[in-house]
């Protein structure tokens, strides 16, 4: 064990944590809208809901690594992307990673929200109706907030899965925690020490997210 290396690599890896967090927040931000959009499509049983189901099935049924590689290396082959304004986004590894992560987490989020929508009791809607609240208002002010509360535990898990998923950004040249770890190893040739430090940083971040979600669950539970 090279203790010196552990100490010197720590601040460098912490620098990568910033990119990791940026990737995480951006992906979760876009992912929640994508998820909501497709979850709403799933409410009715029609052609659009089938498309939404296919989207979720494809992104949940294939590894994230494959998705990133298709978006980063694969899409660069397509003229429609490479020769148009789209290339401005797809040229950047940063945006490719965010697009891949957001689409991936969007698929899982749509499933979480869909099952939350399904468990909403008809009673709420009727209660709202009898109070003379419009359907739109019921949807936005009652159904959606309840759905969010019900999805919190599963969504918390999804955030942690996505945090771990961001480590794949290093495969498309980004210098997140894992990217920096690989970089340090390429000159020190000591993978174990560096990966242990990197792993600890991830673990700490998981710990924080886990506890924040727990706190929110408590805060929003109906029983307090």
């Amino acid at each position: 064990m090279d203790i010196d290396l552990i100490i010197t690599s720590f601040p460098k890896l912490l620098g990568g944590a910033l990119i990791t967090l940026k990737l995480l927040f951006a992906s979760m931000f876009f992912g929640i809208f994508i998820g909501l959009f497709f979850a709403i499509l799933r409410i009715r049983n029609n052609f659009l809901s089938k498309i939404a189901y296919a989207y979720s099935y494809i992104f949940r049924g294939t590894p994230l690594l494959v998705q990133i590689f298709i978006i980063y290396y694969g899409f660069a082959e397509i003229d429609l992307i490479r020769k148009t304004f789209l290339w401005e986004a797809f040229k950047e590894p940063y945006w490719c990673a965010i697009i891949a992560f957001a689409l991936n987490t969007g698929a899982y989020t749509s499933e979480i929200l869909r099952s939350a929508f399904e468990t909403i009791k008809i009673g709420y809607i009727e209660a709202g109706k009898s109070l003379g609240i419009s359907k739109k208002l019921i949807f936005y002010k009652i159904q959606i907030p309840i759905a969010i509360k019900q999805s919190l535990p599963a969504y918390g898990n999804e955030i942690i899965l996505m945090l771990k998923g961001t480590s794949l950004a290093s495969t498309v040249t980004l210098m997140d925690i894992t990217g920096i770890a690989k970089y340090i190893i390429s000159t020190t040739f000591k993978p174990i020490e560096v990966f242990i430090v990197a792993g600890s940083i991830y673990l700490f971040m998981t710990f924080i997210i886990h506890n924040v979600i727990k706190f929110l669950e408590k805060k929003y539970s109906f029983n307090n």
Partner: protein
Amino acid sequence: MFKKTILTIFTFLLLTANVYADKIKIGTEGAYPPWNSKDASGNLNGFEVDLANELCKIMKHECTIVEQDWDGMIPALVMRKFDAIMAGMSITDERMKTINFSQGYADEVASLAVMKGSDLEGMSTPEGINLNLGGGDVDKALKTITGALSGKTVCTQIGTIHQNFLESGDVGKVDLRTYKTQDEVNLDLSNGRCDAALAAAVAFTDYADKSGEAVVLVGPTFSGGAFGNGVGVGIRKGGDDAIGKRDAKLLKDFNKAINKARKDGTISKLAIKWFGFDASM
């Protein structure tokens, strides 16, 4: 009985002890053509695969060539996954801190590459510069390159002499991107994500030939300094124990074998076959 069978199968799968001292394993990347690569049937080929087989014949060792990702090459050698590295790995001081090298068996000439039509194409420099020599010409060339590359995205494989050079400050500060393999560098160079790339000149010419992409070499060829002192066989640094002694002997054997292969023209012949010119040293 059943338990015994299971146990035997498990020991067989788990532990294949490397007891034959004269049987050695050589690690290569299989993704750096023409130095080493893989064909469509998954067989390793390339200059170093041929050379490794020749050297083993001379040393009368039984050899197997194993594949290892570049970014784990030296750690894998250190942890004894194999006994020698032949993977287009240049001899550098940085690597010498961790492993030993045989004498060089070939020269790696590095060069920048861009896509045809790039504004970097007109760079006017001498044909080749040796960083060890220094002097006015070298300084002038480095200055030209510094100016040309400033603000550009330059791509290279991670953990290579090319990365070391781009980070050395000799060409100022570039927007450096590092990749796991040269294949990925080539892809991003041709699709326009990289303004320029740095690698062995033959890696680019080989790519241009096979892909038909308009990749062209620009600027001087580089040697010396961060580019190290030729490509050699990487061997573990041994201690005083039995394994250390075996590694020390292996290093000697490789040196002798390289000497012989150089003298009888084997290396030159293989270099011409794979590179198109004599890169032996």
